[in-house]
């Protein structure tokens, strides 16, 4: 699936800013910055990876700046970034 660079989210408390861009090598590479990375870093990365893969992304570079987002917010922001990067919406027109 062809990707262009796209963003979704904000740096407000309770949110996460996701940037997705084409990767140079196969697989999903995630760079995460979070104040709760020690406790929840693996969980946040896992939600991002599962969400992106569920939308057909096999290769991408994702930068995530987390401000204490719940899993549902991580999922929503990752989905939005993928939709913006691929142009393929998850809802019917």
């Amino acid at each position: 699936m062809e990707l262009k660079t796209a963003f979704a989210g904000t740096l407000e408390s309770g949110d996460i800013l996701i940037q997705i861009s084409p990767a140079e090598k196969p697989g999903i590479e995630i760079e995460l910055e979070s104040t709760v990375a020690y406790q929840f870093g693996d969980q946040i990365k896992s939600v991002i990876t599962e969400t992106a893969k569920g939308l057909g992304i096999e290769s991408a570079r994702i930068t995530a700046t987390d401000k204490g987002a719940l899993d549902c917010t991580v999922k929503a922001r990752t989905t939005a970034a993928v939709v913006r990067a691929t142009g393929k919406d998850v809802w019917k027109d």
Partner: protein
Amino acid sequence: MMFVPGNNPGMMADAHIYGPDSIMLDLEDSVTMAEKDTARLLVHNALKSIDYGDTEMVVRINPLNTPYGKKDIEAVVKAGVDVIRMPKTETAEEVIEVEREIERVEKEIGCLGRTKIMAAIESTLGIVNAYAIATASPRMMGIALGAEDYCANLKAQRTKGGEELRLARETIVVAARAAGIDALDTVFSNLNDMETFRNEVEYIKSLGFDGKSIINPRQIEVVNEIFTPKEKEIEKARAIVAAIMEAEKKGSGVIALNGKMIDRPVVIRAQRTIQMAIASGVLSPDEA
């Protein structure tokens, strides 16, 4: 009903902690056009994941004549929203169109009839058509006033006393009562003027409204305090209901209590006081 912007995940996660009766996640006016797509996804995922308990969950969608309305309906119906709030409703046909879209999605996921509709009336045409809107679908559960757009359309200025809204408010309550659904008043947006807010809530309660739209948790306490029946009112209501039940056993529909005639309309008002007391948590159903 507390308004929460649909593009603010922090507020969406915390809103129910303050105990509003219902939460309205907004996809319309509080979300810029550039963020409609992301807000829709946030609201969809929040509804599916956050445990809002008994709080009634409402989502204000964008109108169907925008590129966002149909997608909003799909997203929130699939997430199991309780009520879809239509903005700027002017005709019964608009309600029927929203109902049709809801049905399409509900059929797809196998939950036909689950989603209710509330219509916000925000124009003079909407007020003229209030009863037709209120009765346009069996899914209709309430109508609400949106005062800012209504006043702009009326070519009137907002005032502290709200005289410019009197006809609209009365029309909405009468239409809602005639249709057997709820009437909800508009928001009060000056958070620093709690005295005028309190006066307005007392006023709209006296008109017959079922509740008030609010924009901040600070306003919840005042609304609950004013809408919760006082101890004296509850005691009086219980005495009336007990007296009429006793009279009905004896085959009479009219009685006197403390020297005043008690007939059917008085009993209906007493029953409503008891229902409100139970809903407010100050009276247990066993005591009623």
